[in-house]
């Protein structure tokens, strides 16, 4: 009798394997645009069917019939521009979700795969992944409000609309020190900065993979600066490709302190009354924290060579088969703000974030981005090298 049960069980077992097998063999997403997608693009007036003019009233009318818009946002500031949007456009409810960028990609992929289309607006960092894993597969689509086309230069409109550029830069404690203690990235590899250079964990924050990628892409600049600082050509460690990688290796070997968040970095460096404050890299926009906490004393080191930091892009797009495309367009338009900054853009109109509109004056107290000595992360380079860089990082953690 028991034998029979065992046979029954093993049959169930086999059955279930067969059941899950298709899930494994299946091709997860078809290449090229499906007929449904094309139909949706047509009805949503997106992609090839986008209109050339921006008619706010008509869009609002259409959006009102949709009634709501869900925004997947990499930052919690969605809870700021969401409510102002609702005030401006009554009748449209904003469903905001604060999701980390990688998780958002996973989620969008899962939704698209399950044909369970929840997201409308995707507001996300890490453009390389968005372009190559979502846009190229037709899972998200670019939307540039037609009235803004002239105000935004092309590489901020293509392939995806950039919402703003965010800068990560080196900071120091300006209470203890009257001037930045270093003037080159290479200073951080010196013994006096052992265990005193704070860097956010690139394993957690893809943004800092972009930072490292920019340093590597500009390895020539790194090599030149090495020569300036040490007076001789750089000698690469065995197996290391270029001066950019070499810098990563040497800072890691110099016991670079890995931090959990940019907030931790600025708090760590900026806290007043420190005997021997460290330096570190953090989001430029952390400068705004100083206003909130009188105990924070730090500033960006504006004169570091070869660069003071790296600019990365935050992009915005509409998910495939979004159920509320008109509301989504309206939302994107709202988020891009106006020539004075604007309510929709207000949460980002802060020190350290740089608008892509050429008609907006920089935030008070901020220099314009062109005046800052920066490199910019190139999504294509990040896509090609990003994981290699991360593996190099992981491999050399001591």
């Amino acid at each position, binding site marked *: 009798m028991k034998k029979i049960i065992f046979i029954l069980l093993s049959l169930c077992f086999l059955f279930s394997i067969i059941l899950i097998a298709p899930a494994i063999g299946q091709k997860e997403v078809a290449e090229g645009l499906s007929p449904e997608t094309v139909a949706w693009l047509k009805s949503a007036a997106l992609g090839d069917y986008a209109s050339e003019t921006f008619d706010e009233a008509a869009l609002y009318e259409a959006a009102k019939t949709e009634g709501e818009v869900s925004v997947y946002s990499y930052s919690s500031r969605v809870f700021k521009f969401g409510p102002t949007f609702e005030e401006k456009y009554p009748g449209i409810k904003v469903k905001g979700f604060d999701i980390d960028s990688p998780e958002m990609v996973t989620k969008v992929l899962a939704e698209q795969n399950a044909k369970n289309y929840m997201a409308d607006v995707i507001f996300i960092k890490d453009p390389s992944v968005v372009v190559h894993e979502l846009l190229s597969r037709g899972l998200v689509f670019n939307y540039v409000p037609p009235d803004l086309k002239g105000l935004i230069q092309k590489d901020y409109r293509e392939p995806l609309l950039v919402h703003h550029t965010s800068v990560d830069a080196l900071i120091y404690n300006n209470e203890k020190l009257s001037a930045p203690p270093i003037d080159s990235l290479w200073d951080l590899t010196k013994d006096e900065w052992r265990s005193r250079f704070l860097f956010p964990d690139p394993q957690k924050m893809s943004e800092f993979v972009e930072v490292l990628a920019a340093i590597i892409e500009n390895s020539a600049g790194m090599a030149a600066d090495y020569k300036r600082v040490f007076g001789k050509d750089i000698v690469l460690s065995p197996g290391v490709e270029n001066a950019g990688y070499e810098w990563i290796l040497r800072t890691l070997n110099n016991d670079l302190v890995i931090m959990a968040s940019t907030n931790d970095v600025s*708090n760590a460096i900026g806290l007043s009354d420190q005997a021997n404050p460290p330096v570190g890299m953090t989001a430029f926009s952390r400068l705004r924290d100083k206003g909130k906490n009188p105990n924070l004393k730090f500033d960006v080191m504006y004169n570091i060579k070869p660069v003071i930091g790296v600019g990365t892009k935050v992009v915005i797009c509409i998910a495939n088969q979004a159920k509320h495309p008109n509301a989504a367009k309206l939302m994107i338009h709202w988020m891009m703000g106006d020539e004075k900054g604007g309510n929709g853009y207000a949460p980002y109109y802060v020190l350290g974030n740089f608008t892509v509109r050429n008609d907006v004056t920089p935030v008070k107290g901020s220099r314009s981005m062109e005046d800052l000595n920066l490199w910019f992360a190139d999504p294509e380079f990040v896509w090609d090298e*990003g994981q290699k860089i991360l593996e190099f990082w992981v491999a050399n953690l001591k």
Partner: protein
Amino acid sequence: MVQGEKEDIRIKFSRLRNYIRQPHIIISLVLLLLLLFIVLIPFIKMVKDSFIWHFGDTRLSRSARPGSFTIFHWRRILASQITRNVLLRPLLNSLSTALGVSFFALIIGALLAWLLTRTDLPFRRLLATLAVLPYVIPSYIHALAWLTLFKNDRIGGAVGIFQYFFNLSPPNWLSYGYFPIVLTLSIHYFPYTFLLLSASLSSIDSRLEESGEILGATRSYILRRITFPLVIPALLSSFILTFSRALGIFGTPYFLGSPVRFFTLSTQIYSSITNRIPAAGYILALMLVAISSTVIYINQRIIGRRKGFVTIAGKGFRASLTPLGRLKYPALFLVVALLIISVLLPLVLLVWQTLTLYPGDYSLDNLSLLFWIGRGNTEFAEGEAGILRNPAIIKAAWNSIKLALTAAVLSGFIGIFIGYAVVKGRNTKLANSVEQIFFLPYLVPGIAFGALYLSLFTHRIGPIPALYGTFFLVALVCIAKNLPFTGRAGITAMLQIGNELEEASEIAGARWSTRFRRIILPLSIRGALAGFILVFITVMRELSLIILLVTPKTRTLTTMTFRYQEQGYTQFSSAISVLIVLIVVVGELISRKMGKKSII
């Protein structure tokens, strides 16, 4: 001839039918099928998924074709430049922390159990009640409290209380990494050993020991040669239970290990999966499962199959108490100190921290209720409102409670069925296998279990839609992981009822559904409640298990704590932790009211 054979088959078939038609057989089969779906299939799927390309893998290799077969991930983990830092060192760290934790938890727990059951220490009953509390507090709270206390200036910023008051920077080894991880987890897990061993100690007939004494053996000789061998099964069991739990723990090593690059398999699984290289996470999770199964296998070889796991049961005999003599008050002091360190101190620290306006400033004029009841729109923490006014946190609190209740009710319910099947079929192979197999989820480390579910449910499987992102999935994993508890409780409850009450109702003409509804359920529900409450508490403070599965919609208090801590808003994370402890304690109090002692 042919006629006869046909007859034969028909009879065999109807015999089988009679056998299978017994309710407990049906239930056993259904339970085994359920287990297939909640443990075995996820496991197989995870193995398979470690051999295929996933979406994000195109970043790793241009030849990646999502969905098709590859051994790339295994090669990458087992033999590449990152092997040492992604697999070997974390493996070593995981093993050494789990071993260290089991070892110290065992020593602390065993000593405490002996002191509180076998000696004339004052206030034993009260102390025994308090000794369970460290387990009720979420484990990472000890880690956060440790940071509050001993954070040094390595990661800069707000220093710990120690440095604040003594102006002395604690060394790295004290602040972060192996030492504090083992210490805080030992403090969290010793109640396990304590409970198992107290039960075992108080069920040893003290006459065994007394007869040794009459024969002239010394106390210590008796302890070594009589008492110790008798409690060995309990010791080994608690070692295993602690080991497999500590192996899968995520929060503590994450908070205390990362600052000094101390990674464990669980933190590596987490970063692989957040970095969208799930296959790497699955492979590491498989390593965890392999380690814990190996250890369990060895354990089973040592103490034999049937006695594999000791559970808390049975009334004690009167034990003769060892007089502590001059050591009485020093021992009392030690026990009280232990309880203060493990329960009171972390909570006080946390509460204090939630009241500091600027982190790291422990002076009185820095106290504020902003993080509890602030209206938001201030300059703090991105202007988020205090946790009691913050809709996102209130939503998470409801999620947590909903999750804990759902998991408790459903797994409690299934537990009753497990109890029924096992007790009804006592001593049959089928019932034994139900009993043993339902212990499996316990042995799969928490974060690995989460990974199993992640791998299975991110895609649609036949008629089942992709469950990733749903409340149901999070609930499912909590239910599955907790079945060992509720199954135990169900078995105990059912043993107390006995068979005859149900049989009497069958004689009275009741079909099975009536019997279940009118007799079994009302009678077992009280006993099953113990398991129910335990699950509620466990899920309320669960992080490792659900961290990979939770999405913004299904965020719980624990994952919110984690998020705030990660983003550096320590006051918020501490305040939420305090909220969790409050809810758990209220749950515990309700359970006491209902007159049932909770079991672990």
